[in-house]
């Protein structure tokens, strides 16, 4: 059961464009994690957000946690082909992580 909704499901853009992907839930998160997964590999943790309204930056990636801690967004500035991959958000449920279905991003040169 996927408790997190991610949108859009697919995104294809050209190099240099900006984009935002979203992660939403009907329930409050204690924390939220963003992962990127490349084909044939496991997900790799990008960031953890904990506090409502929190903004974290990782080079060209900006992560925001909603004030009510029910939603999060990932904004990529000047996308590059190396940003191509599946972007997953995940929240803790006990000791397990529950993942959304992900946003599949393709950046073409």
């Amino acid at each position, binding site marked *: 059961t*996927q408790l*997190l909704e*991610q949108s859009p499901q697919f995104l294809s853009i050209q190099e240099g464009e900006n984009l935002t992907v979203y992660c939403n839930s009907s329930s409050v998160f*204690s*924390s939220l*994690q963003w992962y990127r997964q490349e084909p*044939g*590999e*496991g*997900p*790799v*943790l990008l960031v*953890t957000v904990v506090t409502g309204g929190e903004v974290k930056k990782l080079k060209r990636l900006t992560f925001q946690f909603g004030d009510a801690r029910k939603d999060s967004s990932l904004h990529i500035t000047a996308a590059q082909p190396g940003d191509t991959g599946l972007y*997953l958000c*995940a929240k*803790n*449920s*006990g*000791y*397990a*992580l*529950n*993942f*959304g*279905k*992900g946003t599949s991003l393709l950046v073409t040169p």
Partner: protein
Amino acid sequence: GAGVSQTPSNKVTEKGKYVELRCDPISGHTALYWYRQSLGQGPEFLIYFQGTGAADDSGLPNDRFFAVRPEGSVSTLKIQRTERGDSAVYLCASSLRGGANSPLHFGNGTRLTVT
């Protein structure tokens, strides 16, 4: 300094057969997780080990699935009487302590195909 290692990377089996998937976690990580990822989906939780014991096996879909971690390190996921619907990528992850503040490190998965 190796990451999480999973073997085999690919496994093709016939419907009804038994399979074992192996996971070598990062040395010193006490927590180990198994996830299953179907095409177009995010990873789905199967089972969590803290040390040798299965602390949470609520994600195992039915009694054909079983996992062990006898010495608190290597883990094996076992699937009996495989079905075509079991076809997926099986991911293993480990973390230093387990819980919300201990990041997960994933292996590259075993792609299981049941024909």
